[in-house]
């Protein structure tokens, strides 16, 4: 259930979850995260092939969760955050 709280600040700025800024250009390293759901790798293989053609200057790095049933472990999240500027998480079945 949505919980409601009262704003403890002077209300000059909004309090809400905000998405990170989205860059205009995709560059550097892009993480492809396989959550280990069945056939996720098939989907990510195809995605990598298509995106590599479209974004020749970008390096794709593959990551994999041990199980789709749990959130990504902290170590994996930290490694992705350190290594990559973008992440594509693939859900397949």
């Amino acid at each position, binding site marked *: *259930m*949505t*919980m*409601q*709280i*009262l*704003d*403890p*600040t*002077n*209300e*000059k700025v909004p*309090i*809400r*979850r905000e998405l990170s800024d989205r860059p205009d250009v995709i560059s550097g390293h892009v993480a492809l995260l396989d959550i280990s759901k069945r056939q996720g790798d098939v989907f990510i293989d195809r995605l990598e092939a298509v995106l590599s053609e479209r974004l020749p200057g970008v390096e794709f790095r593959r990551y994999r969760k041990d199980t789709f049933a749990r959130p990504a472990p902290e170590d994996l999240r930290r490694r992705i955050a350190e290594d990559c500027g973008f992440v594509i998480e693939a859900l397949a079945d």
Partner: protein
Amino acid sequence: MTTGTSLPEFRLFDASGSEHLFPTGRPTVLCFAKHDCPTCELSMPLLLRMHEAFGDSVDVWAVSQDAEGEPTLIEEFGTSMPVLDDSSLAVSWNYGIETVPTIILTDGRGEELGRWWGFARDDWRGLVGRLESLTDLEPPAVDWDTYPEARPGCGSRSLEPGLYERLSADSAESPLRARRVDVADGDDVMEFLFDKGLTDGLPVVPPTPERVLRMLSGTQRHAQDVVAMVPPNLATVTVEKIAINAVMAGCRPEYLPVVIASIEAVCTDDFNIHGVMATTMGAAPVVVVNGPIRQRLGINMGLGCLGQGTRSNATIGRALRLVLRNVGGAKPGGTERSTFGSPSKFTLAFAEWEERSPWVPLHVERGFEPEDSVVTVYALSGGPSLVVDHRSRTAESLATSIALVVRGIQDPRAQARGDVLVVVSPEHVDTLHRDGWTKNDLREAIQGATSIGLRHPDLATPKVPELDYIHLVVAGGEAGKYTAIFEGWVRDVGSVPTSRKIED
């Protein structure tokens, strides 16, 4: 029975999903009921008889307060009479229902013609008579002798703890005006508060409208009263905003007046909280409480009073800091530039043990009446430095020990520029009192014993610039020959200790 004015409109649904709008344009009987109330059970068959007899001209509705009980009410009575779902209790709240059953008779425009509580046989007979005269219809044949003369009702669900606060917070009369923030499904509210930078680094109690409303019950001041302008943003802080942060800090409602007085005290030109927060010296606002409110709130003035473990001590000081952070915008790395910070910046509030002290209490020294409850705030950048003196048997000897620790604070070779708060333990004050020493005797001894010319003998000056910069209170556990020295920040260009009376 009472009569009132125009009742608010409402829209409720019955179990079949049919909408019922009030007022209806016809005379109406509303019976607020809940299933597990024996007096409601006694009344419902009579209500059904009213519906059967007068239903052609009068709307007779049962208004059910509980969703769980409603199927039973519907099963027993709902096939012929509308049983409306008010399990949200919005209508019960708006109509001021305190007891069930409550029966309200209105005219077709929603004007209240009569209201009855519980069960009274004569009231029901009177209601039948009223409906008869309103409609010219034949009254139902009721064997009134089979009914008891009177039965008390049950409490309305809208007054149950928890529900009452929720309904108050959501009602049109709610004193709450702060922006409401929705924390989404699946989001952890504690993590949300951390992520939005609204805590001091420790978890806070989520300030739900219900909790804030309960907090506001701790003061007689109006929720929208402006208490101060809080630096560094010079943001207006209302009683409500203080209450929100007091909830987050973990305060009980009765602590709120102490927090309000503390905010008033620090947001003065004299105290200069902007400078206190900004200084690299790491000053923290420290609250000392005097007067009768100490006992009422259980503020610790004895064993462990400067430490953890007492809710009032811990949360009053923390609420003050959260207001400065959240409303004023004082955050480390922003306008807070302390080199080291200080554990006192989380919270530090305690009370003087006036009853254990032979001396005039702090607040009386500062011009208040003994029966006044008062906060005094200090900008303290260090301490407590402990004077551990188990050997002195005379006041003079003990004063020398205290003075030498005072001499050592900050740069031992330089004069301090600020105040010094000396917290004397019961055992130490006994030593001083045995020789008849007053607070001023101790102050003068400190000044005398610290007048050392460390750079040149001819340049001897006391450590503390003025006699009245030395503040003395008695507190702490019965066992222990210790005195705790807190070093103030800077007086002349900085902060002046400030007191405020605590008002309910």
